[in-house]
């Protein structure tokens, strides 16, 4: 399994490309922008995008979807019925997906937005805006922030320390580093 990261100037967000070592059908997570660099990353690694996973329906994480769908015949998976006006397969509860032979654990994390999901593929956690290095997703409602803090703290404490955290914005992290240094957790 290989994972690549692409920084998008649209919304200063991170997009991720996950696929098998030998190339073939691959997954894009949160296509904030489909720029030439990202397209080269896909093509030069012999990937064909079959699946698009969306952590939440905010522009910084989905603006590249229409361009991506002009090039690849891909299915969208999110907690909404439509993303950028395009039909999406709805995932609303904690569940398991198998897309092109890749096992994906889907976790529901309402807080930053009502539709926020986290995806776990192997030892990689794609957290969108729910959890970033040393921070949690924003919400104007303090009660929602407190509830998200509790939810993330409860779930992350049982996760393997070696799992990598790949957020929608900012640097990557690990579950251990979040347990040890995220001031928003365990308070």
């Amino acid at each position: 399994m290989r994972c690549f990261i692409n920084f998008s100037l649209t919304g200063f967000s991170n997009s991720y490309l996950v696929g098998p070592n030998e190339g073939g059908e691959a997954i894009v997570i949160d296509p904030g922008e489909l720029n030439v660099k990202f397209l080269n990353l896909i093509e030069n690694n012999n990937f064909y995008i079959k699946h698009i996973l969306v952590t939440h329906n905010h522009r910084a994480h989905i603006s590249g979807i229409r361009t991506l769908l002009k090039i690849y015949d891909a299915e969208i998976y999110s907690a909404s019925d439509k993303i950028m006006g395009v039909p999406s397969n709805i995932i609303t509860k904690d569940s398991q997906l198998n897309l092109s032979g890749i096992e994906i654990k889907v976790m529901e994390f309402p807080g930053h937005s009502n539709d926020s999901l986290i995806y776990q593929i192997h030892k990689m956690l794609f957290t969108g805006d729910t959890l970033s290095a040393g921070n949690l997703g924003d919400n104007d409602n303090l009660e929602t922030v407190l509830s998200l803090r509790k939810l993330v703290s409860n779930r992350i404490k049982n996760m393997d320390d070696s799992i990598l955290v790949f957020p929608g914005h900012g640097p990557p992290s690990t579950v251990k580093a979040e347990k040890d240094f995220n001031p928003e957790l365990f308070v």
Partner: protein
Amino acid sequence: MYSHKKCSEKGCLYFAYKDYDKCLEHIENRDKLIKEATLELKNSDIVRNSNLSTIQLDSIELKDKIIVVTNFSNSKFTNIDFSGSSIIFSLFQYSTFLNCKFNKTIIKYTVFAGSTFTNCDFPDSNIVNSNFNGIKGENLSFNDSDLYYSTFISSTLKNVTFVECNLKKTDLYNSERTNVNFKYSNYEEALFNRNR
């Protein structure tokens, strides 16, 4: 990606070294393996997809290397010169850096969380989207560097200079700072507080 295999020694939380079952702390021929890895690192221009966690390197030059998707967690670096190197998408968490140079380095999407840095310099570097959360740093210089979107959350910094740096979206929330100098940097664009 590098392997996520854990050391098989009971109670050990470190990653296993390369394709071995144990980390370097628990492998019998540890010194021989470190010598081999040192030679390999010195002679390779590109280090990729490798698990070198718990390695201990002393007084070697790792200038102008490309280090991509490599795991150096829980390692120790003493007198290492990384100048001119590009370090991308790699893991250096919970490591120790003593007297190391990172002049004109490119560091992107790399995790140094929980590491200790003493007498290290990162001048004129491009350190973007990298995670320095929880580090303990003393006598460090990041002068003339771009630290865009890098995080120093919950870190402890003593005698550290960020002179003439780009600090846009650099996050220093919950950090403990003693004699830290932000002269000529756009520190007003850095994050020191949370509006909650």
